[in-house]
């Protein structure tokens, strides 16, 4: 139990990185505020989930505009939600567990982003549903 205190000033480890994340969290949040709420309104308020199927999506994504909007939302969400989860992991875990979880998280982020992008880009304009 060291009871002798000597003054000292540890140097910081990282500067701009955390700041950038903090800032982007807020920027994406503002974007998402519009995009996600609009999305939710369209998908759950204007249209009823019961009428939505692959064809419905195909109709919506028939032009490039909605695909672009949704891709922006995807990008923002992936960044925001996963960086948000990074925070949660950084709070409740330490050391190697934290490392491993963060890596898994980034991996999942990449996968989700890739899957979403692929879906957005390659989704056929009309869907044939095998009956």
């Amino acid at each position, binding site marked *: *139990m*060291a*009871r002798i*205190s000597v*003054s*000292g*000033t*540890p*140097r*910081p*480890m*990282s*500067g*701009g*990185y*955390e*700041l950038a*994340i*903090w*800032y982007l969290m807020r920027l994406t949040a503002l974007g998402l505020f519009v995009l996600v709420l609009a999305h939710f309104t369209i998908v759950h308020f204007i249209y009823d989930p019961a009428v939505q199927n692959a064809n419905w999506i195909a109709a919506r994504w028939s032009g490039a505009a909605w695909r672009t909007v949704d891709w922006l939302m995807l990008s923002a969400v992936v960044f925001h939600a996963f960086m948000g989860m990074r925070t949660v992991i*950084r*709070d*409740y875990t*330490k050391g190697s567990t934290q490392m491993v979880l963060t890596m898994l998280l980034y991996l999942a982020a990449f996968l989700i982003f890739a899957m979403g992008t692929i879906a957005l880009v390659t989704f056929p304009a009309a869907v044939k549903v095998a009956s």
Partner: protein
Amino acid sequence: MQIELRILRFDPERDRKPHEESYQVEAGPMDRVLDLLHKVKYEQDGTLTFRRSCAHGVCGSDAMLINGRNRLACKIRVDQLKGRRITVAPLPGLPVMKDLVVDMESFFAKFRSVQPYLQADDPDPERERRQSAEDREVFDDTTKCILCAACTTSCPSFWAQPSYVGPAAIVNAHRFIFDSRDDHAADRLDVLADGDGVWRCRTIFNCTDACPRGIHITQAILEVSSKIVEHHA
């Protein structure tokens, strides 16, 4: 009136883990929790251990967890707590040395890490440095800190990661960052832009609620983070 005082006790020489003990004390409404602790110590059990000095809320010795909140035992009256039962425990999140006494070393180390002292580059003038009343007002609030640790140890972000520099250290950094006489704000901003710096604040406000000096801590923290943003822009 009779008050039941439930105190979380721990003596490293006897106990393996902390346990609650109950004491009955006679109290008047204007009595403070510190008075009750004294009554227990002086009339019932001299082994009860806690820190205290000034007894009027200016030295910061006796911050502890009272009825689930961090407060100064000498600054909270029995009538303000309402009810006949008062629970007392040591500050959360710091190692307990004995009963209500926690090890403050890490707390003070964090205080020291933010360079809590004036650094002015120009040579000292003959007379005082001039400072307008407005410039002085900017950091008035954060000069009130008595380093009691009530804030830092009330912060869930600190409980989760004790490496978080914590509100108290940020408050004291704020006091110099916003002092017009100081030339080294940038150094402190660098320290606080660290992963364990201001970004760990989740605007939970437990700190602000706990501060016995009524410092608007969350505001100070956010003023510092805004300053970091500005500084990097």
